[in-house]
């Protein structure tokens, strides 16, 4: 399988089952470095090329990465990078890198390793729904397999040594991506974000560091990496995420109870615009699809299912949209084609749902 095949398929990570309406994905990221080389940001491109040439064949043989695809950042065009970014397989920082940086990825996209981003290795496990423990178990095993073919920079006192001292220790960032429209509509999200900050957790938007929470998507992750065991950090975030899920469910119930008309109007407007708009920006599409997703989850909209909405959430991103169209689009054309894709997608979803409904009667 080549990177093109992967890019032409829709991302596996957004395929959610009925269980996970609120927690969309769980993710573990481990920062690791090689003992003998300067960190990527300091070593210069020649050094980075040496490291990539050294690591690429070794990583390509790691059992848990099979069947793997490995690709250098200089072998990808801007659109490919944009798609990998939208699927959370590379970071913004990695997308800007060229020769000497790369990506090794298992073809199901659940497991990947970025080489020469901020650290020599950034190991990632991405799981659907709430499964941070499972993701950590897999990341731990993958890390041990990589450790067997390289020599990590490690200090008995400080743990895994990272380029930025904010990551030293476990080098682990554990995060859950949550869809919290109920808490946003009930205006209860800010105290929660503040409270999470007080207990050492960070809340970010859909695309990580420095992004705002569009589409009511929030990413909750640990801030500290030193002085706690990985399993404790993971257990702690899972428990907190579970509590946030309960808050969100509660907020949705209260919306129905106290603001039913407002809620129906809010969801109905989103659905109306999505099915009739001829120009949609990325942000508007994301926000409206998020509202529609809430309507589907609460049974207010039954004409489409959540899978249709989740697919559109991914396919309306600029990279995916242009890949589907097979060419680079100007922003104005993008908004027109995005709106067209959304109208078509929802209409197909409605047909599918009607057929599905009939077969049940």
């Amino acid at each position, binding site marked *: 399988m080549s990177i093109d095949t992967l890019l032409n398929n829709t991302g596996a990570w957004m395929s959610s089952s009925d269980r996970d309406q609120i927690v969309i994905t769980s993710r573990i990221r481990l920062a690791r470095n090689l003992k003998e080389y300067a960190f990527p940001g300091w070593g210069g491109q020649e050094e980075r090329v040496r490291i990539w040439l050294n690591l690429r064949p070794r990583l390509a043989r790691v059992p848990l990465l099979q069947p793997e695809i490995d690709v250098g950042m200089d072998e990808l065009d801007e659109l490919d990078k944009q798609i990998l970014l939208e699927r959370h397989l590379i970071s913004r920082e990695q997308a800007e890198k060229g020769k000497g940086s790369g990506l090794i990825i298992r073809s199901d996209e659940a497991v990947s390793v970025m080489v020469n981003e901020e650290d020599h290795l950034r190991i990632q496990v991405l799981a659907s729904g709430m499964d941070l423990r499972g993701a950590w178990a897999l990341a731990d095993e993958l890390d041990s397999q990589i450790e067997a073919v390289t020599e990590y920079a490690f200090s*008995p006192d400080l743990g895994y040594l990272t380029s930025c001292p904010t990551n030293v220790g476990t080098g682990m960032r554990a995060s859950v991506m949550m869809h919290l429209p109920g808490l946003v509509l009930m205006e209860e999200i800010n105290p929660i974000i503040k409270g999470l900050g*007080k207990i050492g957790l960070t809340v970010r938007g859909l695309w990580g560091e420095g992004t705002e929470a569009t589409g009511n998507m929030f990413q909750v992750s640990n*801030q500290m990496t030193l002085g706690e065991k990985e399993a404790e950090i993971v257990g702690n975030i899972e428990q907190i995420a579970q509590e946030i899920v309960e808050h969100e469910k509660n907020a949705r119930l209260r919306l129905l109870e106290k603001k039913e008309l407002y809620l129906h109007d809010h969801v109905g407007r989103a659905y109306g615009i999505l099915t009739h708009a001829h120009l949609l920006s990325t942000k508007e599409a994301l926000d409206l699809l998020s509202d529609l997703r809430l309507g589907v989850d609460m049974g207010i909209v039954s004409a489409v299912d959540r899978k249709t909405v989740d697919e559109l959430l991914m396919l309306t991103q600029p990279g995916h949209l242009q890949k589907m169209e097979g060419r680079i689009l100007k922003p104005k054309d993008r908004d027109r084609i995005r709106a067209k894709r959304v109208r078509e997608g929802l209409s197909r979803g409605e047909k599918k749902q009607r057929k599905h409904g009939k077969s049940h009667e």
Partner: protein
Amino acid sequence: MLCEMCKTQEATVHLTQVVDGSIKKLHLCEACSQKHGFDLQGPISITDILLGMGSQREDKPAATPERSCPRCHMRRTDFKKTGRFGCAACYETFADDLPALLRAMHRTDRHIGKVPAREAARVNATLELTRLQDALEKAIGEENYEEAASIRDRITMCREQLKAS
């Protein structure tokens, strides 16, 4: 409000970050924020420049030659500017700066998580060394010199083991 660094210009850059449960605020003028390698477009972390702030006040004359990493040649000013180390050895080179920095960022300054398999022996030896040193102090305190001598031998062995690994 005046800039907390130069104390002359009006502060126009205001940063807030939650570090270990408490809110830290920093008010800077445009020039100082730029001078300290502060990219306003990029992700912001006060902790990245905590170090820079401290030294501004302390070592203004800067008479002593600047410390730099023997392996990757990163200088202390380079680290202050970027907030990133140059290589693994920098953690030893700049060990003096670390405790304050790590305390601001983390729960403690000691790793208790996963240990790579090939490092396990070294980590165990380090733990054993700490344990033996405590035992030695205790033995000396109790004037149990025979015991102390035997512990000292084990400490020497443990040190050699650590050196070899």
